[in-house]
């Protein structure tokens, strides 16, 4: 299994503050990876490190087998659509395609033209006059038509209305299926990720909380409800993510690779959103005490 993104001890510090630390990742190729976490968790920092827009303060990162943005060849392998999907306001849509054609060795002019036609964008229109959704589509077109192995998108739909958001995501998924791209996209909305991704990385407070295949994550996280008891008395293979107690009842969210046999628990399945929220709301000291990267791989 070749990794499209591999990080070891990766960290980035801005002056005194660590925006990302102790990040270990091994993301397989061919996946659509959702990077979720609250605002300010370090999502943009991780994506900028992956695209080579930032250099690490600690550790290493490797993308498609090379150091990000190390040279023309490496640049050709990775597409990056930055937050707020920046485009040159003074240049027309056609100018942007021209730019892509002149600057990228693998540029796919047919794909670019076809996408612009299908999206109904006027090639003569200045990019500054496009709506947010159209601008995002133009930026995505540039990212796709350069034919990268990995496409990185930083909050591509954050500024879009729900309809444009859905259209953009659908369009992205079609492109992924058509061109066999790996994709890493960030969002602060789990629902976006749940709908489109098959792999998730949860980033909270500058640390990776959990990363793994979404189906695997859903399969090994359970909600246990039963009479009140101390979470420390659980068997070894069961890791408590969150615990809440009433006078009589205890509700635990646990991760375990084996089935839960204790008959005193009522075991119920969890959706991705529940799992992600559990990791996000975990008390901060629990995060710092344990090794942050709980890698789930099978």
């Amino acid at each position: 299994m070749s990794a499209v993104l591999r990080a070891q001890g990766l960290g980035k510090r801005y002056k005194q503050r660590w925006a990302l630390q102790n990040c270990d990742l091994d993301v397989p190729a061919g996946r659509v990876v959702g990077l979720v976490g609250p605002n300010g968790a370090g999502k943009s920092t991780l994506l900028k490190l992956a695209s080579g827009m930032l250099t690490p303060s600690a550790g290493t990162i490797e993308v498609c087998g090379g150091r990000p943005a190390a040279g023309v060849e490496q640049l050709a392998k990775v597409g990056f659509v930055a937050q707020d999907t920046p485009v040159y306001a003074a240049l027309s849509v056609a100018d942007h395609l021209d730019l892509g054609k002149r600057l990228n060795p693998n540029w796919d002019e047919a794909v670019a033209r076809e996408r612009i036609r299908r999206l109904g964008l006027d090639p003569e229109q200045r990019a500054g006059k496009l709506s947010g959704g159209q601008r995002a589509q133009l930026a995505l077109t540039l990212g796709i038509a350069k034919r990268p192995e990995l496409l990185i998108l930083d909050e591509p739909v954050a500024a879009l209305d729900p309809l444009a958001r859905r259209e953009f995501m659908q369009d992205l998924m079609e492109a992924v299926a058509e061109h066999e791209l790996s994709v890493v996209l960030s969002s602060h909305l789990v629902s976006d990720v749940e709908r489109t991704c098959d792999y998730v990385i949860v980033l909270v407070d500058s640390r990776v909380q959990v990363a793994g295949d979404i189906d695997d994550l859903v399969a090994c996280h359970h909600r246990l409800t039963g009479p009140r008891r101390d979470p420390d008395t659980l068997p070894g293979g069961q890791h408590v993510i969150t615990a809440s107690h009433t006078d009589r009842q205890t509700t635990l969210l646990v991760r375990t690779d084996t089935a839960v046999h204790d008959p005193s628990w009522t075991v119920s399945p969890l959706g991705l959103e529940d799992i992600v929220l559990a990791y996000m709301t975990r008390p901060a000291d629990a995060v710092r005490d344990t090794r942050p990267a709980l890698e789930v791989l099978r």
Partner: protein
Amino acid sequence: MIWLTWRQFRTQAAVVFAVVAALAVTLAVTGPNLSDLYRTAGSSLVDQVSSSDQSLYYVGLLVVLAVPAVVGMFWGAPLIARELETGTHYLAWNQGVTRTRWLAAKLGLGAAAAMTAAGLTSLAVSWWSSPLDRAVNGGGATDTYFPRLDPVAFAARGVVPVAHAAFAFVLGVALGLVIRRTLPAMATTFALYAAVQIVVPIWIRSHLAAADRTVLPIEPGGAPISIQDGARHIIAHLEEVPGSWVTSQQTLNASGQPAPVPSSFADCLRTESGPPTLQQVDGCVADLGALGYQQQVTYQPAGNFWVLQWAETGLYLGLALALAGFCAWWIRRRAT
């Protein structure tokens, strides 16, 4: 890459080159008249220039001085700051072109345009002003027109404007890269460029070529002198070396050592009320000369013009190259 750079740059370039072209046409139309006048009038041309040509002389001077500053502020500072401000650098840096090449194209094209604009302006203005410059160097009065070596005119003649423009442009780019905001970068570029243009003539330019030194006797009817600071300082005017640039003055005592002007000179000039009469001044000057005091004047002769021009050109181009190197380092190591 050059295509994209040009596509982004052409409007700004067009504005500056339009102004330069307009000035060049005006100068081309009026210039031959001035040359003809010089041919007949020689150095007394300085008294016969029409008032419109006199205005044009100062306009030309101002435009050549302004071109590098304008280029630094309006071409250099926004070049990268605007991309960083709008986030478009993320778009540019993720095409199949390395950041270093992106920077090289921007710097290369911009600096070439800046140097061309400044060069053409300086060429036109230097050509148009050459009869006046020659008249001044030939001994014409210098109260209206500057000798070419005068700090004001020096930066508006010959090749130095080209180097000034290259430096100002790269300075703007570097500041934009570090400050990351267009308007503050423009303001800082102007302030820093102006500071450099004040520092260089005052402290550096005079050392770029070997200076001449002469000792003038202090006597009535000799070299004209100004008495300054309550008669504590004397400034001699070097009329017999026209077109020169006086860089320092020193009063010497009878044994040839640097010395302050003696207080007896101030006492001699004191009056009950009002300024001393001419006879009184002449008498005091004669007394000072009789005590053995002389005035030592250090100056750059008019003949050093091109030596100084090339030396300063080299200095500014060196600074521009160093700043370009800094930009390349910064964009790889520090910029996001």
